[in-house]
């Protein structure tokens, strides 16, 4: 089901590949081939670093079909360090940990499952940036 639909988006889902505007330099995610700022063509590919911070967040208790497996879960608007905002789930953290401004990084996780034997869609989520403890 919808295999080609998700296959087409793999560069965005797994690697955060967007675009750069040729004339004003703005970075775009998702790619749209036309700059959101100056409307010039923007087709040069750009791979985002995956670093950003939480712009807003909420908790989903009544999950839509295909997402029941990890409810309740949190969805956030993430402001990437290059500027664009993306909608994505938060992961690898407790439900009461999120705050606006929290530094996060992109990881690849399971997004949706269509039943026991159905297709699994993978894609980006964001987790808190962990700093390794300093060992003396």
């Amino acid at each position: 089901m919808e295999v080609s639909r998700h296959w087409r988006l793999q560069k965005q889902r797994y690697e955060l590949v967007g675009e750069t505007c040729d004339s004003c330099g703005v970075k775009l995610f998702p790619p749209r081939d036309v700059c959101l700022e100056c409307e010039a063509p923007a087709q040069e590919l750009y791979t985002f670093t995956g670093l950003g911070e939480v712009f807003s967040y909420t908790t989903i208790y009544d999950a839509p079909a295909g997402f029941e497996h990890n409810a309740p879960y949190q969805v956030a608007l993430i402001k990437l360090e290059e500027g664009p905002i993306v909608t994505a789930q938060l992961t690898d953290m407790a439900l009461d940990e999120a705050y606006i401004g929290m530094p996060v990084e992109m990881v690849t996780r399971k997004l949706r499952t269509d039943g026991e034997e159905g297709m699994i869609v993978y894609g980006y989520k964001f987790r808190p940036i962990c700093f390794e403890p300093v060992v003396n």
Partner: protein
Amino acid sequence: MQEVAILGVGQIPVREHWDLSLRQLAVDAGRAALADADVAKVDGIFVSNMTSGRLNKQRHLGAMVADYLGQRGVEAVKLEAACGSAGSAMRQGILAVASGEMEAVLVIGAEKLTDTGFTETTSALATAADADYEIIQGVTFVGLNALIMRRYMHEYGYQREDFAPFALNAHANGAKNPNAMFRDPISQKIYDNGRIVADPISLFDASPIGDGAAALLLVPASKAPNAVRVVGSAVSTDTLAIHDREDPLWLKAAELSAKQAYEQAGIGPEAIDIFELHDAFSIMAALSLESCGFAERGEGVKMGQRGDILANGRLPISTMGGLKGRGHPVGATGLYQLAEAVLQIRGDAGEAQIDGVNIAMTQNIGGSGATIATHILKRP
């Protein structure tokens, strides 16, 4: 372009209508508008609906409605712009009459959401958002509004309780409207104890879905000297996804369509007597007030706190319950707003009547703000 008037309105009470099909709802509302206008034949029919292909296994609503309404032969088509379908269909009906191409036009909004289960219905409604970049992340439509509301609270320093006046006002007014889904006022305490649906949005910050249909009959104003006039009509668009907006806390399409409608009417926001806004969520009511120039940025909530929005306030909103109290049959909602504005101007709003309404504005929002239709109506 000639001026357009609204000669007839028809509404079906918003309910869980287990005994009425989508077809029956649409036809009943259309018949009511024809009877109200005392018109038998029309030149065109614009139907608005969002989900019938998926939830009712029926598309091709233009022909279906024309057929069952006894109007076979006339031009008829369905328009879709998510929850903004009805306001957008109204705009097309107005253009058809204003251009001189059609003399009598029926605009009918109909939606049937309760034949299917909660999960099926909510996923059909979620198609208003960006499927590839919003919905695939497991966010619901309520969730998208929650993201906006939390950021708004963060930037402007509000608490969840500060939004209560929008819900209290809507339910108080809905209690006075026989077509409303909810007929009981709610107290601050009931609001405070509302179950959290998607933090910070609680049950009472969200509108209920329901089945419904509403219809308007449009004619040239020159043919109906005593009918309510359409003096402003505009539809604008914005990015499909919230995350692509330059400012996620600003409804650009509301600002643009309101500005055009004000210019057409030759007035500013201060001239508006009542405002039927799209309070699908409390946060949308606040953003709508700000983007249309009724409040400064970040101050929309204060209009609620000051009582400006009440039936006896400076700018009554949701005067017959709004989306929260009357209910939100998505593809029909914009026409309920317009029908209510017409009743208020005519003085036919019954218990919900606001004194001395000369100019009314309506605003219908599709998705989280990607399509916004604004209309201004005036006493003849």
